[in-house]
């Protein structure tokens, strides 16, 4: 995948350090943190720990470099992005959250919006999975994660079927690896990459589509 750095518009040639089984949490980071957001994050954190998933947010690391570039990089590293919006989330934070959600969806990440009951999502996101915070919160989260885990098998199967478009197959394996952290997907991708040498490529493979601009 070609990634364009939003800061300078150049294609990035820096390898991504992937973070399998990690969620990128998008919420208001500016203090003071809204009470309802704090409660959602607390229960979400407990749930993620039980699922053996880690969580990061834009404040998780200090690079000393551009903040946007850091967020852009984080969206590539993870398999899942979770947004938290409440009635008290500031407009400024909302704009950031929905920008990041868009980035994650464009890069094929699984996304979930957790919202308090009194909040409406913007119309562009009405088809995005959202979960209302309430008593059955953990049940809803479980359903979302069950769906994500079922995608892992699907991605693996798709990779098998799309071997004649190896870049696409490798991309499916990368996504399966991000969900599970299973090393076997990495090994499979490397094997596929090895097999590429000297192979006649299909007419519509990713690189052939890319070159026809």
């Amino acid at each position, binding site marked *: 995948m070609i990634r364009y750095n939003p800061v300078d518009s150049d294609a990035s040639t820096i390898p991504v350090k992937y973070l399998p089984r990690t969620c990128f949490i998008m919420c208001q980071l500016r203090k003071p943190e809204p009470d309802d957001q704090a409660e959602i994050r607390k229960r979400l954190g407990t749930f993620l720990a039980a699922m053996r998933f880690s969580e990061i947010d834009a404040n998780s690391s200090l690079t000393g470099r551009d903040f946007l570039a850091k967020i852009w990089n984080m969206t590539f590293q993870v398999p899942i992005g979770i947004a938290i919006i409440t009635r008290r989330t500031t407009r400024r934070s909302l704009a950031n959250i929905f920008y990041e959600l868009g980035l994650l969806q464009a890069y094929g990440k699984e996304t979930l919006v957790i919202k308090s009951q009194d909040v409406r999502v913007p119309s562009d996101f009405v088809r995005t999975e959202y979960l209302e915070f309430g008593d059955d919160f953990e049940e809803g989260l479980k359903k979302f994660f069950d769906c994500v885990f*079922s995608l892992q*098998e*699907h991605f693996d199967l*798709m990779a*098998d079927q799309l071997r004649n*478009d*190896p870049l*696409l197959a490798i991309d499916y394996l990368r996504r399966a690896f991000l969900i599970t952290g299973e090393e076997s997907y990495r090994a499979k991708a490397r094997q596929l990459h090895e097999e590429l040498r000297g192979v006649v490529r*299909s007419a*519509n493979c990713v690189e052939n589509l890319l070159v026809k601009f």
Partner: protein
Amino acid sequence: MTSKKKDIVQVKNPKSDRYVKIDRSAGKIIAHKKSTGPYKDVPIARKRSK
């Protein structure tokens, strides 16, 4: 004139709960089913046992 035999299968996407048709020889997704249920007369691809 001889035509190449196509190797077409279908796979169910668990997120959309719909089948997608794949041309394995071309390595490409050729159709997404709009309604539920599989395509007629197209084999369903299964995961190979390890």
